[in-house]
């Protein structure tokens, strides 16, 4: 796009700036729209599994429910508790929301269709997702209230625990692809057994795909790992003192994070924008549609789990993270690197 503006007589610096800003808007606005629609989808799926109707009043089939909620929230009064640390209290939801959008910069939607095609794409995502915890911790502390504070403490311990195993899981994928660049990782998944696309079909990486899905749920604090907002224990967790737009930002940020994690599942293990089968006619369908189909599938899995699995107790959560996921993912780092040493890199010398 920089070249397009450059050809039309815009100087290079300005053209670059313009195309980057347009690129950011082209990603951020659809993500927000997708968040609104997926909140509706989540409620519908959840309702269907509980044999309820779900939202069905606003618009046809209740499709406009999320927008009505958004409008309502915008018109409400922002209440800041008098004992709260005002600046941090207001910055915290902004951090959550911004961080959730930032990570999309390196997600490849098709060959070459990516805002920033950087060498360290996966590390960038890891770095950004490790920031998500600040929004919650700061909210908990700045609210100056007991339940949010408990929630903040839980959140920081939980996210650090699962980030460790997520790191190891990502390393197995990086070892297999030989690169941190997300486009290269997607391209490296072509042609398993001659006709399948996706690391998930690799017997060494399939267990990692399952563990990544579960860790992603823990990392985004979705059910069954939503200890940070366990309503039976902590009222609404870190959001207890929030109202109106600040509350909505948490809501948006949480769902944007969920979509991102679904996209990462698709990109790292199930071929991203590649069709599931390595068969020429399937490549006629634009890659972005394959990516969306995979994201929607994983989102359905997320809602399915939310509707059916009871919440973990805190010690069970920690046990799963440290005693099961960490050793297993370490073992697979060992297995994958050993296998690659034997086959791809010429064996023991």
């Amino acid at each position: 796009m920089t070249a397009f503006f450059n050809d039309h007589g815009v100087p290079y610096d300005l053209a670059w700036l313009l195309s980057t800003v347009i690129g950011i808007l082209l990603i951020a606005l659809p993500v927000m729209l997708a968040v609104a629609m997926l909140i509706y989808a989540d409620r519908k799926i959840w309702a269907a599994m509980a044999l309820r109707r779900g939202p069905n009043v606003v618009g046809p089939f209740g499709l406009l429910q999320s927008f009505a909620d958004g409008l309502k929230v915008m018109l409400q009064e922002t209440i800041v508790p008098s004992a709260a640390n005002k600046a941090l209290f207001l910055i915290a939801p902004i951090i959550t929301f911004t961080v959730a959008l930032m990570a999309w910069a390196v997600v490849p939607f098709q060959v070459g269709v990516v805002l920033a095609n950087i060498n360290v794409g996966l590390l960038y995502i890891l770095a950004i997702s490790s920031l998500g915890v600040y929004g919650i911790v700061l909210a908990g502390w700045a609210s100056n209230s007991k339940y949010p504070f408990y929630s903040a403490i839980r959140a920081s311990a939980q996210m650090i625990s699962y980030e460790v195993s997520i790191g190891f899981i990502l390393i197995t994928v990086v070892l297999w692809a030989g690169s941190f660049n997300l486009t290269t990782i997607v391209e490296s998944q072509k042609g398993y057994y001659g006709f399948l696309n996706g690391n998930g079909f690799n017997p060494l990486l399939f267990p990692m795909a399952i563990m990544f899905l579960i860790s992603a749920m823990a990392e985004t604090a979705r059910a069954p790992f939503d200890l940070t907002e366990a309503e039976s224990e902590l009222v609404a967790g870190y959001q207890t003192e929030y109202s109106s737009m600040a509350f909505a930002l948490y809501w948006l940020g949480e769902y944007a994070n969920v979509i991102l994690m679904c996209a990462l599942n698709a990109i790292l293990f199930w071929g991203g924008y590649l069709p599931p089968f390595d068969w020429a006619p399937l490549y006629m369908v634009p890659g972005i549609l394959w990516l969306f189909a995979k994201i929607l599938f994983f989102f359905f899995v997320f809602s399915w789990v939310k509707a059916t699995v009871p919440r973990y107790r805190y010690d069970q959560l920690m046990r799963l993270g440290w005693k099961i996921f960490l050793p297993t993912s370490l073992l697979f780092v060992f297995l994958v690197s050993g296998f690659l040493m034997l086959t791809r890199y010429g064996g023991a010398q």
Partner: protein
Amino acid sequence: MIHVVAFYLFATLVVCSGALTILSRNPVHSVLWLILAFFNAAGLMILLGAEFIAMLLVIVYVGAVAVLFLFVVMMLDIDFAELRAGFVDYLPFGLLIALVLLAEIVLGIGIWSAGPIELAQRAGPVNPELTNIQAIGALLYTRYIFLFEAAGIVLLVAMIGAIVLTHRARGGVRPQNIAKQNRRRPQDAVRNVNQPVGQGVEL
């Protein structure tokens, strides 16, 4: 042009947030300024072309170390009056440290202006085709493999030491045995009794 703007932006922010880390009264604010300083330092690294180091700085320091700092500092019962009270007591000590640092800076500038010194020769010619990560890996796992693994062992020993020091066996706890729970079947736990009316059950 944009590089110059970015450099001065990042550099100014590093210095300012570093200063505010020390100056702010509230320890939580200090940690947050420190995090901002880390971030902008990562930005400077990217300007140098060291994107791998920049990402590691954010992942390790911002994502893990600073979270732990914040975790500890958040729990403090902050008494602002007490924080101010210590100022005069610590003043001489602070001045001493300031003098030492000043001397070091003067010495450093003196040495630097005396002429260039080759502190370290490049270990090997770096192939410009390689990415950051490949270049670092190629060096770390060949030339510095012993130091690298030794550092790993030291960290492992430190970790085990920390666990040994803080771990104490507590009596009287009944931890959940998940394997045992999963092995349990309905017939082990439930018994159907066809009980005549008006009589108790013999357990």
